[in-house]
């Protein structure tokens, strides 16, 4: 029963007061692995990224298809990129609420007392969430395919568009991670994020052509980074081209990172 191994006394131990980059990466990957085990344990965590692509593609395509594009087949090249962007933006919000929930749990105190990289739990959460974006992206394209969407750009363009949209979602998730770190409760993160999310995802060119909108709204839709992301995806999958919107999306993502990585990390380190 007893562990007979004697403990090495404290004064004889060699301890170091810094964490190496290698350890930081290892710790972050372990934390990401922990996130994935949790998903396997509670697959309902994936509810949003599974239901939303399926439901929204069906709903919006048959609801608006005839009115906006004449028929469903013509509407698919417009709506699939729109729904893809919307789904993935919604999916990135969960990062914040889950982070908040996690930080409120007792196990977080243990992480804080372990000699690990401080940033690992945050980094791990952000890495693990990439799986969610991959699922959402894959499902949206699959639904499109089932409904008859045959993108002109071919498989490579779909892969490129997927990478773009996943990378963008990852950048965006830093915003919500920031709310997650500073907020008091998971539900306040949720509420806060929705205020940002709804205008961004609906006041875009996702569902309707911009020229049907009143002028003041057109202005917002045109500066909305999500619109640029959607246009970039449409260019890629429908024409196989990389246009100015592609680069604008990437710049947009980088700007978000430049602002929110330092903010989030600083706020997080203060609490961790």
């Amino acid at each position, binding site marked *: *029963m007893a562990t007979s191994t004697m403990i090495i006394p404290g004064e004889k131990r060699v301890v170091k007061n810094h964490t190496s980059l290698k*350890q930081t990466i290892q710790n972050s990957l372990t934390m990401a692995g922990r996130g994935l085990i949790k998903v396997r344990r509670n697959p309902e965590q994936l509810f949003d990224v599974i239901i939303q692509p399926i439901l929204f593609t069906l709903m919006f395509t048959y609801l608006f298809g005839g009115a906006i594009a004449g028929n469903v087949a013509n509407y698919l090249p417009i709506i699939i990129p729109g729904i893809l962007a919307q789904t993935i933006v919604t999916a990135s919000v969960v990062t914040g609420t889950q982070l908040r929930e996690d930080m409120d749990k007792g196990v977080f105190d243990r992480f*804080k007392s372990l*000699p690990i990289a401080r940033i690992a739990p945050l980094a791990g959460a952000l890495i693990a969430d990439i799986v969610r974006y991959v699922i959402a992206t894959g499902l949206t394209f699959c639904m499109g395919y089932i409904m008859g969407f045959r993108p002109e750009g071919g498989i490579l363009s779909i892969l490129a568009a997927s990478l773009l949209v996943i990378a963008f979602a990852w950048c965006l998730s830093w915003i919500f991670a920031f709310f997650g770190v500073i907020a008091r409760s998971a539900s306040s993160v949720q509420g806060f994020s929705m205020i940002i999310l709804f205008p961004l995802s609906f006041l875009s060119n996702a569902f309707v052509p911009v020229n049907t909108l009143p002028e003041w709204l057109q202005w917002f839709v045109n500066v909305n980074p999500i619109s640029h992301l959607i246009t970039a995806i449409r260019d890629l999958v429908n024409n196989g081209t990389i246009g100015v919107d592609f680069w604008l999306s990437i710049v947009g993502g980088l700007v978000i990172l430049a602002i929110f990585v330092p903010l989030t990390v600083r706020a997080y380190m203060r609490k961790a």
Partner: protein
Amino acid sequence: MTKPVNAIEVKGLKKYFGDNKAVDDIDLTVPSGVIYGVLGPNGAGKTTTINMLATLMKPDAGSAKVFGHDVVKEANAVRQLIGVTGQYASVDEKLSAIENLVIFGRLLGLSRSESKAKATELLEEFGLTEAAKRPLAKFSGGMRRRLDLAASLIAQPPLIFLDEPTTGLDPRTRNRMWDTIRRLVKNGSTILLTTQYLEEADQLADRIAVIDRGKVVAEGTPNELKKSIGAATLQLHISDAKRITEAAQTIKKVLGVDTQNPEPKLITAPMRDPDTVTDLLVAFKEVGIKLDEVSVQKPSLDEVFFALTGKTNSAKKGKK
């Protein structure tokens, strides 16, 4: 040879939450290889103290060193020397026992197979093998506590913090926990444990610090503490509750000790020398304070606590 370093050295440690002086100028010295008990009622500042020593919270003032490493400036070094079992479970509810331990092992730098082996060994040692794969939601309080302690031992830390390790455990489980704690010290660890039960501190600890409202009110070996309280307590039931202050003054004058009055008509005083009681009774007779009942009680554990902190310790039962 390196000269022996104290496991913990705390000087003038303070933590205020607004006006609430949770920890107010605490000094502690814990030599290597002992069980050190920190005893105090609810809200005394036990958890706050541990949190600062375990680098979970930054002190507002003062310094704390673990094996000579400063808990603020060398936090990461300190974390390599400690294991922490907090007051509330710090394992992941959504994962199984073995998954929890493996993740902690990986974070501590063990390889996949090493962490598996270590987890299996610890689960076996703590009698949790059967439940290893079950989700924690189905664990009893005692099982959770044991898993929590197991998780703190993965790195075989030389210093272990246990915050109320037996609160809420049944007597048998508590005894097992005590055995485990004694075994850890035999293997060379140093343990700082907090408790609300004087009996526990008495049974386990080599030294005890009694804290109340953020201050150390007494420190010493269990025997020293008991002696300082007095061998027994004199209990006087007074007929007229209005004269209680007068009675207290009389006792102070004759016996030279401070008194408590836990009930309106009851006054208690530590009794060091039974001979002086006759003097006291005579003095009462002189001033005309009538007594309903006089009794002498050996110090119950609660009484020692009460005498030191001015609070009864029975509140503990209400808490989780």
